[in-house]
């Protein structure tokens, strides 16, 4: 669908095009993209007999070509995301009927590289659940929501140095380690508390059996290596 835009005033119109392009870049979400997908804006300035100066013309045309290119490559990116999400979903879809247990949604989302907090996770689950929660999440509802999350790069993982600083905050006397009791107290009483199972799991890997304490710098280094 081609919309022929007839501009009365050259500069006013050029500014509006730049505005549009910037808005488009900022938003970069799939739903908006599809709206503009087949829109091609041609410019004709009827006031002057000659067409807009070549310089401006090329600038604008290039802008539109870039827009279109972004749109198409975005579509490719989205298609890849879809496949990635599908793969992760299918692994947990035990009955091969495009549903997963709601208790595994957190694992799926995190396995795709996102790190939502428990509260954020609850909100996400609310978005993908049925009106009458069945305990199962359907793929059809999960896919668009997860695609948005990936496109918007929400819930980025915590960088290593932030994590280190967090431990250092808890280690107020700057000893370089936390005792078992201290870690338990913080993890089970502050923030979004751990369950007993989570606490035990963390301790089994983090505690140095000889000193019965957590040398967090080593611990972080070990975990990071394991993930790569």
């Amino acid at each position: 669908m081609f919309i022929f835009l007839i501009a009365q005033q050259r500069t006013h119109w050029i500014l509006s095009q730049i505005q549009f392009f910037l808005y488009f870049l900022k938003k970069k979400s799939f739903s908006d993209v599809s709206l503009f997908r087949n829109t091609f804006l041609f410019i004709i300035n009827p006031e002057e007999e000659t067409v807009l100066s070549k310089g401006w013309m090329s600038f604008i045309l290039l802008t539109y070509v870039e827009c279109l290119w972004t749109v198409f490559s975005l579509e490719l990116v989205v298609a890849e995301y879809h496949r990635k999400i599908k793969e992760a979903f299918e692994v947990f879809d035990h009955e091969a009927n495009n549903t997963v247990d709601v208790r595994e949604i957190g694992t799926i989302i995190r396995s795709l590289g996102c790190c939502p907090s428990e509260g954020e996770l609850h909100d996400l689950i609310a978005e993908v659940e049925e009106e009458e929660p069945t305990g199962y999440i359907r793929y059809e509802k999960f896919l668009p929501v997860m695609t948005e999350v990936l496109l918007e790069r929400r819930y980025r993982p915590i960088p290593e140095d932030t994590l280190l600083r967090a431990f250092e905050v808890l280690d107020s006397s700057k000893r370089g380690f936390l005792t078992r009791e201290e870690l338990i107290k913080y993890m089970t009483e502050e923030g979004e508390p751990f369950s007993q199972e989570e606490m035990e799991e963390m301790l089994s890997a983090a505690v140095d059996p000889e000193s019965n304490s957590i040398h967090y710098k080593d611990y972080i280094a070990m975990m990071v290596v394991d993930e790569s």
Partner: protein
Amino acid sequence: MGCGTSSSTKDRKSEKALKAALVIQNWYRGYSARLKARQRYALTIFQSIEYADEQGQLQLSNFFSFMLENYTQIHEKDPELVARLFGRTLQDSKDRQEYVSFVDVPDSYNGPRLQFPLTFTDIDLLVEAFKQQQILHAHYVLEVLFETKRVLKQMPNFTQVKTSPTKEITICGDLHGKLDDLFLIFYKNGLPSGSNSYIFNGDFVDRGKHSMEILMILFVSFLVYPNDLHLNRGNHEDFMMNLRYGFTKEILHKYKLHGKKILQILEDVYTWLPIGTIIDNEILVIHGGISESTDLNLLHRIERHKMKSVLMPPISIDEDQDTDLKKTKTGANVVPREGKTNESPSEQLPKHEWEQVIDILWSDPRGKRGCYPNTSRGGGCYFGPDITSKILNKFQLKMLIRSHECKPEGYEICHDGKVVTVFSASNYYEEGSNRGAYIKLCCDMTPRFFQYQVTRATCLRPLYQRVNTMESSAIRILKERMLSRKTDLIRAFQLQDRSKSGKLSMGQWAFSMENTLGLNLPWRSLSPHLVTTDKNGNINYMSTFQDIHIQKPVKEAQSTLIETLYRYRSDLQIIFNVIDSDHSGLISMEEFRAMWKLFNSHYSIHIEDFQVDELAERMDLNKDGSIDFNEFLKAFYVVHKLEKLNKSDANLL
């Protein structure tokens, strides 16, 4: 919250601590979830490869049909081979004395000695002996097998069991040769006895290293308490499956002198195992599952001992001139043969009965409604909740308990509570892969589930270590599989790589892998373990093969030949074993050549005959005209460059 000076620094401090705790918790949960996802991926890999193998196994039956069609010399020269493949029973009259009496127990033997008739002391004796890693002498093995066959013959196809408020029954699933799991069950739940009933739901053997010990304990317990220990046949209680999945090897290794005899009797014993158990006329316990055509009334009547093996579908002798290949529900081609043999049809089950048994032993429940051929395994079908309801209602049953599939928690309930899967081999694929479970049932009460996991150490290793072990194991077998299809994979990659750059996009690589290997795996998530990616996100596809190669048994042998032989090594082993009817471990060069020619043409492999001849001649180390095929096939193993591999670890046949 409350007492003390509420100075702003204190507030700020606790706020900082709160934020820090949140960061750590957030990070940890993300990490833990990714670990669990990796564990799942590893499980998926193990499972897909296992099922793909089973499928390959079942397709062998095509080859056998083909072989018999074309290998005309066999009929004259080797009637025994024909008999094996057509499922004719060994002369049943092979006297028990003839076998057992020739096997003497030397005085120097300090293993367990059983006293016939067996009593509960013999069960204890065996359990204690096996805990000490002792091996039961072949004499006793044979006696037990003969006695078991005699007693089993008197049992109906479906054992009827009643529970009472004072008498519960315990149901265990697949054990697959994992003796530690059986010991753990007995430790937690007590040995079988008159007041402690058990049902073992098939697949006692194969894969694990102690299939023989498990079988002996189960059979002896059965002989002592025939009304309280019930055995169901599983798809691995099948001599053909044992050939591929390790039990035959275990027997021949542990019983070098008398292994062959044991194998021959075992074939028969399997066929007399009951098909299933029915509890209180309400609960059906079978190994695999059902299909839409399952007819319990029919199954009650069939002659179950005629069901030899899943690889031996009945041939329709009296089929007419129609030579169209008919695809059965299993996908196996049943070629009607025109009476090429003097095989009497009464030695086999009619086709529809055979299919019914296959469905019972091989089917899997799925969420999708309806009944579909089980394409992953190649046998039986996938049955949906509607099928379950229909069949259960038709025969006035309330629940189906089955095994056959490994579940991470050891058990799984599906189809609205009507189908329960119980699996009793923990750490089935790898240490840490899954729990085992058993069920205790009583009258009208809801079933209770008990889970466990065998560990070598006294305490559980941290999760990340367990996941790492599982993951590396899974990736290894996946890589070996990829290697066995190297030529096909490279061709697929090159087809997509128009510009010959050596690179493909993630989507193209994943597509080629899935199509060529036929495994439905999360390729994108697995790619970091399998290939290298450049900074643009494109994959160097040749890096798929960088860390591993097949050890060439003979230096001059060509790669494609090696690859093909490696790929078909399991099939070849079975074929050789079948040809080698006297279990000598050797076949003649002539047999090898003829068999290879057939294999070549049936599987459309493009290997020149002379190449294989050359290879075989080199394998015939003592130049006596016969090939030790186990040695031949052992020579092909995969070397993983990044790991220290000792030969005993090599995941081969």
